[in-house]
């Protein structure tokens, strides 16, 4: 059980505070919004269509789970655990749970937004959910880096901290766009979100490449 706690602490930190993993939930949001906007009408969501979102969610979680385990394998972490002759059950359970917590948290807000929309409550709520989550995750990551820099004196890249500000600031910009017509706004969100996802992704990949040279 002690090992499970150790793994879970490590994994949850990775899910919520690793800037690279932050891209994935944001990307998932934007892609989901993209799908929502272009494939279904906001006011006619039926059970079949919500099931589609669950399928996307489960596939994404499984994909990230695989990616996470592959990262640990490449880094030699998994081999070290194996050489300790400890059961890997706790490792897998912790990994799956932490990712489920991370993703479910994000997805549930999105899903609830759909439910709200179904009940013909203002569609802005769905967007606001996205804004709140993006703001929170951005702010948390930024605060984490700031805390590290100030109190733990960890020398993380200043550029990385700056990039982390982007998801924090962007929702505020979106908020200012709320005065636009609903249709205009909804077409802006997936496009700008997807652009942000791609730019963040390329930034982090560059950052990763720089760190390894």
């Amino acid at each position, binding site marked *: 059980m*002690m*090992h499970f706690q*150790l793994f879970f602490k*490590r994994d949850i*930190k*990775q899910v919520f505070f*690793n*800037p690279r993993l932050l891209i994935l939930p944001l990307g998932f949001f934007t892609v989901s919004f993209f799908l929502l906007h272009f494939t279904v009408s906001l006011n006619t969501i039926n059970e079949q269509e919500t099931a589609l979102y669950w399928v996307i969610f489960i596939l994404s979680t499984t994909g990230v789970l695989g990616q996470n385990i592959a990262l640990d394998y490449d*880094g*030699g*972490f*998994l*081999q*070290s*655990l*194996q*050489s*300790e*002759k400890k059961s890997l059950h706790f490792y897998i359970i912790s990994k799956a749970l932490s990712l489920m917590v991370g993703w479910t948290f994000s997805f549930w807000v999105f899903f609830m937004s759909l439910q709200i929309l179904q009940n013909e409550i203002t569609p802005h709520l769905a967007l606001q959910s996205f804004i709140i989550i993006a703001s929170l995750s951005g702010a948390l990551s930024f605060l984490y880096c700031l805390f*590290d820099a100030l109190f*733990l*004196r*960890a*020398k*993380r890249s200043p550029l990385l901290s700056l990039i982390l500000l982007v998801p924090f600031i962007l929702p505020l910009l979106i908020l200012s766009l709320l005065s636009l017509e609903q249709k205009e706004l909804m077409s802006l969100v997936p496009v700008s979100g997807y652009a942000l996802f791609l730019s963040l992704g390329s930034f982090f990949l560059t950052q990763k490449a720089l*760190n*390894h040279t």
Partner: protein
Amino acid sequence: MSDILELCNFSTHRNGIILFEPLSLTIEAGQAYELRGGNGVGKTSLLETLSGLYKGFKGKVFLHKPYLYISRRAPFTQDETLLENLSFWASFWKSSENLSKALATWDLKSLSRLPYNHLSQGQQQRANLARLSLKSAPLWLLDEPTAALDRQSIATFKNALTDHLKQGGGALIATHYSLDLTQQITLKVPKTESNAFTLGSVT
């Protein structure tokens, strides 16, 4: 003296091909062996087999547990600080009280707040070796422990090894760098038909 590791006609094979000539070896308490051999002869495979990562072997093995296998890849999270990474393993082995001593021994205190991926190769290797100070294991299985280390760090490693042996431990160390140990063993590629590769032919 008690045996820590005993190999009898031991060899490792991959895809049905035996990597090195059968090996018999006994490591007693207070003994360390240098495992030598050219690139690709199977030094890492031998250590991986002994540590349970690879199952393909022939012969008999007696292995005293617990042991500690330090591979060339440190099992550290790249973005986390050195302290966070070592703390994880200290907690994993229930040896948090040894953490500050490990940092001091391997001269890592000043680097402990840096993310692991900001360290140089030599510093990363020192961090990897600092795990030796965290787990109490009679047998050390080490793969190229001196790779990328400077003279001072190699001396630190040799001191740690000497202390370990004095306390009744043993070690099997795959290395290209001579550690001046009296016990050495060299792996040799077997020259048998079963080991020959067939590249195919063009007609």
